């Protein structure tokens, strides 16, 4: 256990990298060996993640398994890592989804092949993603954050769909554009703090208390822009449908399940606790944008005929719920956000898997051509229906709690925020749930139901295969388990998000009475 506590999170991050290096060293063409290596690396990371979960003191608000090693002494940047109740679920989600993606890759490597490069890039991607969730140093965070871009760029650009060049460059430049502002924000934080530091926890405690309000808002704006592009918040979302649609199945799954969460995580780990004052100022804006995103995403989904693109747009709406939860600044809202992130990762990741497997069979994402899938491949259709229903927020399945808690929290945002705006956002978001149900049901009607089109009547298609089941069953089980037993996540997060809210109230007003009121529901 000591190994886990001391080096667990480091292992979770760098085991995949090690795997990637080993895979690169293997000769070309030995696909099965490369697959086994990739499975071993991600599986080891998953085991470490599970061990961490068991070693973790659930219910403790602070950082655990902290580790700080000197890294770049000249700017006082350290290899400082640690996890708390907010990062643990995301880390576990990341290692799990990566492992399942590798299983799926064993079933099928997309065109134009080259398993070696494909697997190595996924492993590299996993390192970046895991690293982002554990970094407690801004420079370290930034390195991991940017590390994610490169493999994803190649995954889209090489193994993507017809329009992959455009999508990959757009993805890369857009996110890079956002991270430039984020980096400027980091540098500003460094120079404004006294003593100069990149350490998130130090910055949170004492770092930037006395900076002028205008500058603080500016810094927050920069950070928020960087994170918002990644989330993506409306109106910075336009890279997402293209990237999702063009990416290979595994790329879409990882994008949806983990990458988007880095943005929302950034808000909760960096932007809000370090700059709570500006966060309170910006919260109504975020809430309004989130409400817009919910309805807007749903409307755009209604306009789609392409299955995968529709799922991509649904992410805009779902991340809107997450952002709505964050904007309330209450423990309920933050809980909703973390839960929503995990649920969205599981459900939408699963939907992308399904879309990919459907494409493997039908060679198209166009819904009219898929009609009658329920007759052709009933198991696949059943899974699609299950995931669609989970995604539209049916109670008892994973998608529900994030949405309902976000809406619940926005009825009563943190003291100091204007409840009227948030209640308006709540109503709009609630209407969004109807639209969400609408597009998913119409999708099911067009895809699953109806009669089989002439083109496919005579063709025999394979239903869900064993390896696909292997990759999907954990996710399907999670959808159900999270829906029925939400404590699985809540017990871990609640104390941490409560501490987060206390940071905000303690820092933005400096008044202890507020803290007492907020916690005293």
């Amino acid at each position, binding site marked *: 256990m000591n190994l886990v506590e001391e080096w667990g999170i480091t292992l979770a991050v760098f085991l995949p990298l090690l795997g990637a290096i080993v895979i690169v060293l293997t000769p070309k063409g030995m696909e099965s060996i490369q697959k086994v290596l990739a499975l071993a690396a991600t599986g080891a990371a998953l085991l470490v993640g599970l061990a961490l979960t068991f070693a973790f003191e659930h219910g403790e608000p602070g950082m655990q398994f902290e580790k700080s090693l000197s890294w770049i002494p000249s700017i006082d940047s350290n290899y400082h890592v640690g996890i708390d109740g907010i990062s643990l679920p995301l880390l576990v989600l990341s290692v799990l989804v990566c492992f399942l993606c590798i299983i799926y890759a064993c079933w099928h490597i997309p065109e134009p092949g080259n398993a070696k490069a494909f697997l190595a890039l996924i492993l590299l991607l996993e390192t970046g993603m895991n690293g982002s969730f554990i970094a407690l140093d801004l420079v370290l965070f930034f390195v991991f954050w940017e590390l994610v871009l490169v493999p994803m760029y190649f995954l889209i650009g090489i193994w993507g769909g017809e329009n992959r060049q455009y999508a990959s460059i757009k993805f890369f*430049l857009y996110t890079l554009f956002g991270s430039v502002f984020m980096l400027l924000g980091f540098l500003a934080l460094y120079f404004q703090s006294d003593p100069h530091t990149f350490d998130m926890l130090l910055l949170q405690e004492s770092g930037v208390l006395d900076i002028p309000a205008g500058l603080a808002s500016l810094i927050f704006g920069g950070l928020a822009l960087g994170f918002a592009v990644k989330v993506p918040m409306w109106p910075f979302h336009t890279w997402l449908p293209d990237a999702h649609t063009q990416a290979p199945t595994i790329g879409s799954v990882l994008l949806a399940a983990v990458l988007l969460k880095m943005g929302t995580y950034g808000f909760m780990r960096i932007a809000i606790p370090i700059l709570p004052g500006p966060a309170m100022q910006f919260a109504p804006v975020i809430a309004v944008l989130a409400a817009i995103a919910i309805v*807007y995403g749903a409307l755009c989904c209604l306009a789609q005929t392409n299955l995968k693109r529709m799922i991509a747009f649904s992410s805009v709406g779902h991340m809107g719920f997450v952002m709505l939860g964050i904007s309330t600044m209450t423990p309920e809202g933050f809980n909703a956000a973390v839960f929503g992130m995990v649920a969205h990762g599981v459900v939408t990741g699963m939907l992308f898997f399904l879309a990919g497997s459907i494409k493997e069979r039908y060679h198209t994402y166009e819904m009219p051509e898929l009609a009658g899938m329920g007759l052709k491949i009933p198991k696949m259709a059943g899974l699609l229906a299950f995931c669609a*229903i989970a995604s539209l927020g049916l109670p*008892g399945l994973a998608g529900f709690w994030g949405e309902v808690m976000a809406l*619940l929290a926005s009825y009563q945002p943190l003291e100091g925020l204007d409840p009227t705006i948030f209640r308006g956002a709540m109503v709009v978001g609630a209407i969004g749930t109807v639209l969400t*149900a609408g597009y998913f049901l119409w999708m099911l*009607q067009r895809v699953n139901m*109806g009669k089989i089109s002439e083109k496919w009547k005579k063709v025999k298609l394979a239903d869900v295969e064993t390896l696909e089941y292997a990759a999907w069953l954990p996710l399907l089980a999670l959808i159900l388990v999270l829906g029925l037993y939400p404590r699985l996540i809540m*017990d871990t997060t609640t104390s941490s998000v409560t501490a987060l809210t206390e940071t905000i109230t303690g820092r933005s007003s400096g008044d202890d009475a507020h803290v007492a009121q907020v916690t005293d529901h």
Partner: protein
Amino acid sequence: MVTTLATAAEHGAEVAASTGAPLEMAWLIPIIPMVSAAVIWGVGKRFPKKGAEIGILAMLAVLAGALVVFFDTIGHIAADEGWHGYERAVTWMNFGPGTTLELGFKVDGLAAVLLVVVGVVATMVHLYASSYMHDEVRVTHFFASLSLFTASMLNLVLANNTIQMLVGWEGMGVCSYLLIGHWWEKHENSSAAIKAFLTTRVGDVGFMLGIFVLFWGAQSFNVGVISEMATAGDIAKGTLTVGAILLFCGAIGKSAQFPLHTWLPDAMAGPTPVSALIHAATMVVAGVYLVARMFPVFAAAAPVALEEVAIIGSITMLIAALLALVQDDLKKVLAYSTISQLGYMIAGLGVHAYTASVFHIWTHAWFKALLFLGAGSVIHAVHSNKMSDMGGLYKKMPVTSITYIIGGLALAGFPPFAGFWSKDELVLGAYTQAMEGSGAAMFTFIAMLVTAFLTALYVARMLALTFFGKPKYDEKHVHPHESPKLMIVPLMILAALAVAGGWVGLPGEMNQFGKWVHLPGSEHEPFNMMIAVVSTGAALAGFGIGWAIFRLGKVKVDLQKTALAPVYKLLVNKYYLDDIYWKFIVRPVRDRLSAAAYWINMKVLDGAVNAAGIVAVKTGDFMYRDVDQGLIDGGVNNLAGLMGLAGSKLKFWQTGNMQRYAAAMFLGVAVLVGAFVFFRI
């Protein structure tokens, strides 16, 4: 926090004080069908009847459990007048530091009555369906969904908190969706399923928001806590009113009240057993149950919230009864009749007739389930839904006919059938309130009497057209015969209940039901002979006129040719509500608004991104080609030339020539250095 937790604790202690063993196990009742649903989905296909037998077994277990719980409950009630019920809960999760959500169950008279209703009807429907659906496609899925539906309904009934109710509520919604769309090869059926889900979901938004409002008012999801605080006046009246009205929106959707009632007739696209179970006896009364469960909130929010409830219910019962008059589809007659009867229950709650409304749930379940199953038997025999294809079936299928007629008479409200007793109490409740000077109650009272008349009228029409007169079906090809035993037996059991089910609520000291389901503050009115006579008179008049028109042919009325033609047209078109929703809400949102949003996405937002990218990439070239070469060096010869130049140059902005890029770079460096030094930025 401290106060509310203490309240919850006291509350729990109080209700837990007087308990017996059977009640402690009540939580198992919803678990049984849930497990059975999972089993059917998993391995049901391998069974000889494709999973039906598992469902039936589970339902029998549910029924047994429900009866045990029921009798235990009434035993408690008999022993102790002030018994509030039994409640147990575990923590489901903590939303935040002080916001706890429980997973629990609560058994009191109301829940016990509903348990019996669900248990009996579900069992009958399963038995019936195992024969009715025998040769159909996807039988396994059918029975799994039925089981899951039953689990959701039972969960709703037993839930001790609002969120758990929402879970059951939405679970029923999705099962209803799956079952309405059972024959989804046909587009109409899947569309009806979607319509049902979305329409009720509109109401659910209100329900959900109502839960939130009440939660922040009471700091609890617990039904008991909310009710107590509402009654004690611990929640602001404004909050209560908003919360109650929002909750009622949920009931409007689920119980198919005006203006969201339009989904229920379309839901008849599903198999008939589904209509009997879900769209007559159980799911659609969930809205009524919700209002009854949260009645202290509504009562505390009176008069606004309650009057709204009464008026909506009254409008619904009237317009639906009128619609039932002109339907040709047997199931649609029953569907509108269901809407109308639900209006009765809702309006009854609105006029404080709490016990009477729940009593009507109880009686309505028996005769309406009976009518639907009977209709299924008829449809099975003549292979058509339309009454214009039936007639004279009395001789061919006597058992179905007799049971059906019993159901019809119970629906029309003739003594001593079940429907009479509950309807009479409802009318009496409205009358009492009206006499106290409530305008809304007066409206309700009149609406109830008119509806009683109309109900009897369409029942007469339905019975006459279906079972009497000359056969209208194609006698060469269709040979109606009595249905198999498995379908007949449930009919007979339900018929017995439709006759005798109301006798538990006989007026006066005999009234057991009033003791089972009782809410302090909504007292039971003593029997009033005048009201009973008036309402029975209305029903008799309606039935007489109907029988005269449709059976005996004494009065010839051709609605389409008299002055009533516009009315007829209005009714046939269902008040154009469907058209309005379709044309002004669904189509604009689904097709146009979404297209507009997508257009904005692609042209404005995405366009801006792309434009920014292009501009950034090509500014350097623009400076050279168009400013330097185009304007200064080349000069502008004429406007047309400029246009052409611009067009052609725009195309070649990007030359890929690295020297030009390098030039731009060096120039940039020079400019930056200059700026830094000379302007000391």
